[in-house]
């Protein structure tokens, strides 16, 4: 197994419609040996391009890509010792599952007995023994997905690359395959780079997550770190569901004011916001850190706000309450027993130990 490193990697495309555009901009990261790293971001953020550059399917415009101890910039995909699982599975439709699994090894001219052994092993791991002589079209979506993973496993690669492998599956199967993939990673002890646009997948699978937007890496951190300490408004808004609320606020003295309501700040926070004295900031608070006054008691301080409820969604385990602050709609994720209905004027409690402040211009989190 091996580590993967990007050094100042940049990729430009000359697209017919968009002209020359930069898909990946000065990308730097190290993926450690046996680590499960997820690239996440909205479509067009450069995550798949990054993955394809690791695979060698796209050549970077500049910068170095290192797999193991080798700079692989000019190496053909087959010489990079990687295997890839594609979004649409990319199974060869005219070959049986056995032939699909063994295709790569046959091309590498491995001995027949070795190939048979490898195919048998992979089939056993993935529960495909019964299907080896069938064609891909005779298999269900989940089974095809397993074959695609199997085709990667038989190669014993240094690095596994997954390109949105679960996005073609239905919700239930996706959860099941997610668990299987996590389990597979433990068993294989492999380095895995996984691309998805689904932040739930990223949070559940990744040991570390690379959040990307418009070709630029926004933050690289563990799921817990991303959730607790997002570096900027993009990460804060992308990670977590429903996304973090952003509220316009003004710093005055040792307090912030939201629509005229004063919230006194702890000293450390007030010190951190010193440079923003008298200026606008963006207050970020996650929906789960806003409570209905009738249900919560553990939040200290006078961080209360009374608002008229616009809409309520009952999800069973929790309720989502929507109410306006300024011209933004704020979401609160509250206990299902919280009394709420549209039109009700309700007092909400904000947990200020969990709020973040962002610079409205740079959109970066204000450190304190």
């Amino acid at each position, binding site marked *: 197994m091996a580590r993967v490193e990007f050094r100042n990697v940049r990729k430009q495309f000359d697209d017919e419609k968009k002209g020359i555009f930069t898909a990946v901009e000065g990308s730097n990261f190290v993926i450690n040996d046996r680590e499960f790293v997820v690239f996440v971001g909205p479509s067009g953020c450069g995550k798949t391009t990054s993955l*394809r550059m690791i*695979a*060698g*399917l796209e050549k970077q415009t500049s910068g170095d890509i290192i797999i193991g101890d080798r700079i692989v910039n000019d190496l*053909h*995909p*087959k010489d990079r010792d*990687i*295997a*890839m699982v*594609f*979004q*649409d599975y*990319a199974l*060869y*439709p*005219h070959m049986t599952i056995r032939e699909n699994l063994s*295709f*790569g090894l046959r*091309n*590498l001219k491995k001995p027949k007995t070795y190939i048979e052994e490898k195919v048998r092993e992979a089939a056993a791991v993935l529960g495909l023994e019964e299907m080896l002589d069938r064609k891909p*079209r005779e298999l269900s979506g989940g089974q095809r997905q397993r074959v695609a993973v199997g*085709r990667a496993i038989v*190669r014993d690669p240094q690095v596994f690359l997954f390109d949105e492998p679960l996005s073609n599956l239905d919700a239930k199967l996706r959860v099941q395959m997610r668990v299987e993939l996590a389990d597979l990673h433990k068993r294989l002890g492999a380095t895995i780079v996984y691309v998805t646009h689904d932040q739930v997948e990223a949070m559940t699978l990744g040991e570390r997550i690379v959040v990307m937007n418009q070709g630029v890496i926004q933050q690289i951190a563990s799921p817990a770190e991303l959730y607790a300490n997002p570096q900027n408004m993009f990460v804060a808004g992308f990670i977590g569901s429903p996304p973090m609320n952003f509220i316009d606020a003004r710093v005055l003295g040792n307090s912030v004011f939201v629509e005229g309501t004063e919230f006194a700040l702890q000293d450390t926070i007030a010190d951190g916001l010193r440079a923003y004295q008298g200026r606008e900031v963006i207050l970020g608070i996650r929906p789960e850190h806003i409570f209905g006054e009738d249900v919560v008691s553990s939040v200290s301080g006078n961080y209360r706000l009374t608002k008229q409820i616009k809409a309520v969604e009952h999800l069973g385990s929790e309720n989502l309450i929507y109410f306006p602050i300024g011209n933004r709609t704020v979401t609160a994720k509250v206990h299902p027993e919280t009394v709420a209905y549209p039109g009700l004027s309700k007092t909400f409690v904000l947990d200020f130990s969990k709020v973040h402040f962002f610079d409205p211009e740079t959109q970066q989190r204000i450190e304190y």
Partner: protein
Amino acid sequence: MKTKTKWLLFIVAVVILLIWTLITVIPLYWMFIGSFQDTKLSATFRPKMIPELWSIAPYERFFEKTAAIRWLLNSLFVSSVLTVTNVFFASLAGYAFAKLKFPGNKTVFWVLLGTMMIPAQVTLIPLYILVINVFNLGDTYTAIILPGVVSVGNIFLMKQYMSSLPTSLIHAARIDACSEFGIFWKIILPMAKPGLAVLAIFTFVTSWNDFFWPFLVTSSTEMRTIQVGLASFVFAEATDFGALMAGATVAALPMMVLFFSLQRYFLQGITIGAVKG
């Protein structure tokens, strides 16, 4: 009211289709029954639609008087070679244009397409001079075959077809250590079978039915293809219509057999891509 209009439309459609079918089928039928008639009868202006006489004499005369067997073999050879070369080269070029990145991909493709705008008659004379006078290939198989080794129309067809194949399969094969030609041979060609079948049928039928070019570049009787042979038969002293009809039937039959036996592929070929797999 609604069902009445529906029925009316249905009947109109059926009538139009029937007339169309008759227009298409009657000449073939005439050819077929004419091939079993006395020469005078088969040449009458108003032929009898239900023949009184069934005789294989016209067929005997056709095969006796002409080098028909040789012509048929010539046609078979020329059409087969052209089919193989067109399928091979058009699919290679189509694949390259559809899936491979190389400088000038688009430009070369558009230039090729542009040549389709030029009528064949315009290039005929230069082509003739090139083949006959420059390369000195008159009256040879090479002369008949060479200009048609691959046609732009076929490249275009294959490019469109190959574009519909998923690129991820090519990437998967590349990662699976498959060579570039291996990808074409082991992955693309098997998947493109329906498209190749359409191409093969069209090419075979077109080259089998081609008259003008083989007529121009061949001069001896034994180098003629069946179509050229049939035409020369017309010009002989007095036209033996019975035998001519017999010859035409012999020439048309393989095409019909081919078409109907490969019809499944043909339909698959023109509908594929329209249906999500």
